[in-house]
C-alpha cells in the first residue's frame, strides 16, 4: 500500500521531469528557429546585403551596424571643416566596397544602404548630394588632356613642379622653412 506522502513525492518528481522535458523541447525549437532564420530569413523579412568587394569591413559587423552613422558624421565634420581626408571611415570608401556588383550603386532595392534603411524605416538622405556610385577615373577636361598628350608641363602648380624637380633647392622650400 502506498502512503499518501509517498504518492505526493512521486508526483512532484514526475512534474519536475515533465517541466524539464518541455523546457528542453522548447529550447531546441527556439534554436532551430534561429538557425532557420539565418539561413532563409523565415517568416520575418530581413534585408539581403550584397557582398562587399573587399575581404572585411574596417570594423566588425556588429560595431558597424550600431555606429556607422556616428563614424560617418564624425568623418564628415573632420573632412568638411578641417580638410582631413583619411580613407578608412570616408563615405567614398564605404561606397567603393559596398556598391552592388549588378547596379554599381549602394541604392536600389538590393543596394547595400537602401535595402537596410528601408527595412528599418530610417530616411537616407546622404545620396541627395553624395554620389551613390564609386568614383571612376574620369577623362580630364579636353583642353587639359590635349596638353597632357602634347607633353605640356604646365599642368601642376609651378611651385609643386619646381619642388619635385629640385627637392633640396633652398629657395623653393619657403613653406617649410617658416
Amino acid at each position, binding site marked *: 500500500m502506498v502512503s499518501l506522502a509517498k504518492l505526493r513525492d512521486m508526483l512532484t518528481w514526475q512534474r519536475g521531469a515533465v517541466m524539464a522535458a518541455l523546457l528542453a523541447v522548447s529550447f531546441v525549437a527556439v534554436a532551430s528557429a534561429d538557425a532557420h532564420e539565418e539561413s532563409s530569413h523565415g517568416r520575418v523579412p530581413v534585408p539581403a546585403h550584397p557582398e562587399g568587394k573587399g575581404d572585411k569591413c574596417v570594423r566588425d559587423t556588429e560595431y558597424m551596424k550600431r555606429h556607422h552613422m556616428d563614424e560617418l558624421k564624425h568623418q564628415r565634420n573632420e573632412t568638411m571643416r578641417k580638410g582631413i581626408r583619411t580613407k578608412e571611415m570616408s563615405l567614398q570608401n564605404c561606397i567603393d566596397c559596398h556598391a552592388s556588383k549588378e547596379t554599381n550603386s549602394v541604392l536600389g532595392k538590393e543596394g547595400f544602404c537602401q535595402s537596410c534603411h528601408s527595412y528599418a524605416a530610417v530616411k537616407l538622405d546622404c545620396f541627395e548630394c553624395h554620389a551613390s556610385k564609386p568614383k571612376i577615373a574620369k577623362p580630364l577636361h579636353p583642353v587639359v588632356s590635349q596638353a597632357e598628350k602634347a607633353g605640356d608641363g604646365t599642368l601642376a602648380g609651378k611651385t609643386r613642379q619646381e619642388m619635385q624637380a629640385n627637392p633640396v633647392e633652398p629657395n623653393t622650400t619657403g613653406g617649410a*622653412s617658416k
Partner: protein
Amino acid sequence: MSNNVDNTTNEKEQASGRRQFLGWGAAMAGLAIAPGITLFDLAHGRAPEEAASSKVRWGMLIDSGKCATGCDDCVSACGTENGFSGKLETDSQWIRKIELKDMRNGNSHSLPMMCQHCENPPCVDVCPTGASFKRADGIVLVDRHICIGCRYCMMACPYKARSFVHEELHDQNPDVPRGKGCVESCTLCVHRIDRGGQPACADACSAAGHNAILFGDLNDPNSEISKRVASSATTQVRADLNLNVGVRYQGI
C-alpha cells in the same frame, strides 16, 4: 625673413646664408623617416590625416592682360570638375567671365570672377547656422549638412559669387557633393588642393597656354604668387570693403 633684409650687401649676404641654412634644414626635415612616411611633403600636398593649417593662405592671381576675350576654358573646366550638367535652366555658376570696357578709349579687359575667398567674408558674418565658414587655409566653403538654404549669404556677397541649387541633381562627382536646397560657390577645388593639386580653372588656363591664373600660397614669401604680388601692382576687387580677398587681379 626675406622681407626684413636691409639694403646693405653684407646683411643681404647674411640673410641669404640664413635662408640657405633654413632651406637645408627644411630639406633634412622633409627626408623620409620611414619608407613612404615623410615629416611633411615638400610640395603643398598634406598627409590625409593632417588638418588644413592657417600657416597657408591659398589665393589666386589673375592676369587680365593674359586672359583672352571670348575664352571660357576656366568656366567649362569648372563645370566639368564640379559636375554642372549645363542642361538645367537654374544651373549654378561658380565662375563667370566678365568683359570690362572703358567707353572713353575702347580699352577692354576680360577676366574671370568667382568667390574671392575673403579673409573677412561677409557671407560667413551673416550665415545664421554657421554653415558658411572659412577654413584655416583661407578657403571659404558652405557646409551643406547644416545649410538651410536661406540665401542670406548670396545677398551679402559683394561679388555675386554664390548660387542656389533649385533642382534635384544626379550623378554628382564623388569628390564634389552637391544637392538641391543649398547655397554653393567656388570651393577653390578644395578636394584637389587637399591632394596637392590646384583648381581646375588654373589647370585649364595653363593647359590652354594662357597662364592667366596663378594659384599659390599667399603666406609663403617664396611662392610664385607672393613674389608677383610683391613685385607688381595687383588689385583687390572692391578693396574699399576691406575684405582682404584671396583672389587678386593684375592689369585691371
